[in-house]
């Protein structure tokens, strides 16, 4: 039926093994050496160009000079300004994606089905891994990152009871989306969702008092301030490159940052109020040093709060003035003006409170102040 195996073994040239291994290594090195630069310097710029995300020559010149300055200053910058930051660590996933070839489609379909099945069955041990693999294979689709991150931050986090576990899932979803932003830097939708996670989930959810404390511990800033930074980037990218997919309107992209600043101002006002209240409590229990310390903290927070309300006022004013000229419902513009007036009134009132507030009259002034609510 077949030849004798011994004959075949005898015919096999010596050293064939070594050659096979050597060829394998050479092939791997060549493939690795080709895939990464090809993706980074040819495929991705071309994709950006096809998506209409190329920079005009003047801006390219400006970015090139900025690139030179930044490089001299020692910053790590991207060669193609605004392009996704492909790193060497992406090589493995790029290589696997390439090797899968035409099987990428069936494989990712299977991953989607399994991930959804497991989510329904509450079997979680492979879920994050499956989400990561799906995102690696379909990394060019912002909606994929958004969908999966939303699942983690909103749908999976509520399957747990302890705030610690919930927070870990929300963080995981947020980090996932930040990774999505690295791979899709021109997607305002992803940037907006990151801001939204920080503001709506971490800042305003039922468990937000715990979440906000954890965010401050982990990142050193208020969650609303971080949200503002992402919203700000979202509106900038939305202005420059537009929106794709189901779309993110200019008004919505732009208003996120304004809301985040308003919430930031409310949070600072709360901080000042709480510090004053703690000072009063300390004074009533005879702890004078603590009372003065809390009063000083309250004054600092109040100063920052006044600044934040001014900032929110400017943001809302810009928003209202700008969108008065654009084609959006007038009710929306009216709402922007209401927010502007609220911020203006708060800034004025808090400035007045701050001017008359002394350590001695703290109790009287605080009785007239109202602790604002985050809502």
């Amino acid at each position, binding site marked *: 039926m077949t030849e004798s195996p011994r004959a075949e073994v005898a015919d096999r040239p010596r050293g064939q093994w070594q050659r096979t291994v050597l060829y394998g290594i050479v092939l791997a090195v060549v493939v690795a050496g080709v895939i990464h630069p090809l993706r980074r310097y040819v495929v991705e710029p071309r994709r950006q160009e096809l998506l209409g995300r190329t920079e005009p020559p003047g801006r390219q010149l400006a970015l090139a000079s900025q690139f030179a300055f930044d490089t001299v200053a020692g910053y790590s910058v991207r060669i193609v300004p605004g392009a996704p930051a492909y790193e060497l660590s992406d090589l493995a996933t790029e290589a696997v994606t390439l090797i899968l070839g035409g099987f990428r489609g069936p494989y990712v379909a299977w991953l989607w089905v399994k991930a959804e099945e497991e989510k329904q*069955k509450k079997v979680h041990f492979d879920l994050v*891994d499956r989400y990561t693999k799906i995102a690696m294979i379909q990394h060019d689709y912002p909606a994929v990152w958004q969908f999966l991150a939303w699942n983690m931050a909103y749908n999976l986090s509520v399957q*747990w009871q302890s705030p610690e576990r919930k927070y*870990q899932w929300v963080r995981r979803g947020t980090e996932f989306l930040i990774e999505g932003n690295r791979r899709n830097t021109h997607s305002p939708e992803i940037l907006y969702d990151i801001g939204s996670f920080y503001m709506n989930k971490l800042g305003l959810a039922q468990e937000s*008092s*715990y979440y906000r404390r954890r965010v401050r511990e982990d990142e050193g800033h208020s969650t609303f301030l971080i949200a503002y930074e992402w919203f700000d980037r979202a509106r900038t990218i939305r202005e420059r490159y537009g929106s794709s997919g189901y779309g993110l309107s200019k008004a919505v992209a732009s208003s996120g940052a304004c809301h985040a600043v308003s919430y930031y101002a409310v949070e600072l006002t709360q901080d000042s109020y709480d510090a004053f209240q703690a000072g009063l409590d300390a004074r009533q229990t005879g702890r004078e040093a603590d009372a003065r310390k809390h009063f000083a903290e309250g004054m600092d927070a109040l100063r920052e709060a006044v600044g934040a309300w001014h900032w929110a006022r400017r943001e809302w004013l810009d928003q209202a003035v700008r969108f008065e000229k654009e084609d959006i419902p007038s009710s929306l513009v009216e709402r922007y003006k209401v927010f502007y007036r609220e911020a203006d009134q708060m800034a004025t009132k808090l400035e007045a409170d701050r001017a008359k507030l002394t350590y001695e009259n703290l109790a009287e002034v605080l009785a007239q102040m109202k602790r604002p609510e985050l809502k």
Partner: protein
Amino acid sequence: MAKRPAHPQPSAPRERRRWTLSRLWAIALVTFRQGLRTRLWVLVPPAILVMILADLSSPRFDPVFEAVPATISMSLLVMAVLAFIVGTFFATYSLPAELESKVAQSVVTKPVGRAEIVGGKTLGMSLVVLLMVGCVGVAGYAYTLVRASSIQSLAGERLAEATPRAAYPADLNALQAVATNGPLETYRYYAATSGPEIDIDVGLEAAASPNVRWILGETGMRLVWSLANTPLREWVASAPGRLRLRLSVTPPPEEPKAPVQVLVALGSAGVELTRENRQPGGQGPVYQVTMSVPPSGELEIAVVGPNVRPPAGAINVPGAGDLVLYVVALQSGTLVGAGPGALTLVGPAGQEYAMAEAPAVASARQRQRLALAGRAKTPRELAVFRFDNVPGDVLGQGDTPVEAGFSLDAWSSAMVQAAAQVVFIRSDGQTKTVRFSPESHHSAILYLDREFWHGGPLVVQVECLTDDDFLWLVPDSVRLRLGGGPFAWNYAKAVLRVWLFGTVLSAIGVCCSTFLSWFVSILLTIVLVLVSLVRGFVLEATPLGGLARQLYDAANGWHPWAGWRSVVEHVVVPLPDLRSLIPAESVSMGQVMTLADLGEAFGWAALSVAVFVLVGAWILRHREVAR
């Protein structure tokens, strides 16, 4: 002229029945050696490498509980892919190559049957798959052991961190188990004999009325009277009648003087009771009314016919269906009860119909799940699970782990940590209470001391201790989690199932290669495998599903048998259920695969292989080259 007898025509020599195991085995061995000569085994080291790299590079949310199941799952996946590659690309190679090189012609002239050729090829490829899957399995097992040791030390660190923060000692049980015994423990479940049954801890005062059936406010419990065989509908058709209720009520202990409110509703049997949301003075019939119960507990509710506009405080009788009366308590902590004779129907002319029997008590239910309402203070609901006479020898040597798992609807404040307690009650009435923090959809492991209970009857009561929260229970919500034996044996069983998957795949590949060239048979094999993997979807989403249901109904009507479904589905989609051969996620999570499951998988695989071998042999017999 007499007819000459016809000469007997020389008939073609009939093929003798040539089916001997020795020839089958000889062909299988040749195929196996061919597989080795083709160096299929070179796929094994890359597969092991891929398995390890993929596992190491995969992110995990909680490595202590996820890493080992994920590692096992990954190793089984790699084995399945390997079996797929061998079954698809190499099982389809042998026969076309021999037909092409005319080797087959010399083989078929030998005293060898076609079924022996196809069967031998399949068996040979199955041996190749077994060798390769076995090698990866051994490597996977070794790698899992390495991972397990690192996870065990990680669990020890986590335990040290978590201990000061744990609300109850039982919250640490799962972590403690991994830190002490490692993450490779296997388990099997011992289900409760009955349960859950919803009951109430009614307190001493209410318990003094033994014939009274009680419900608790804001839990979804209700008192139910069936009025199907009463004259109420006939009586109220002409003029209004009345329902006279005598209820026992106990206000909540925290508000002893609060008025007790109940909802009284008339409905039709089989229709779920839902709260009406109608405006006062609105149009349409009224089926429910909210009333305050006076201290005497006596209530009278006017009832009118189905098409009459009811006056204030009256309700309509539903026009159709068997009549049912519901009484629901509306305030948390309120106990409302009724005993035999508590309901009297009064007709328009003053005629009376007394209901002698006590009402039934129904609990809140959603599909198959029962709701257990939480309350910080008694009275509160409890769910009862019963284990009848558990043999002591199945419980092992140490304490008995009990798994308590529910889905949790937490309506309490987000920052309130839900709490639950389980009370174990022995046959002599001795109790042991364990409190823990329930996680939604994630089971808690509780330990029952060997000294307290080691076999025999056991009653388990579950209570939710946080206001506004609900535990949703199913029969499997409380079960004993018994030791499942060595991990290696369970893993080996999983590997065997992957091998069965590869064997059936090889049979499909060999069968396709009996009449197609190599490349085309690869394509056909892939298509058949994909359809086999999604045959559940095919049966659900295509008209074939409807056909299967019709056939099932017909067969079941002819002779009732639970197995008809599977038979009919395989008739409608005549492909093996390959998905069922791949081990389930529960195996990766440590649940023991029973020998019955393994035997069933063997049976289905053997049947599938036999069918493909016979079909392949039949095709091969009719191929020109092989005649």
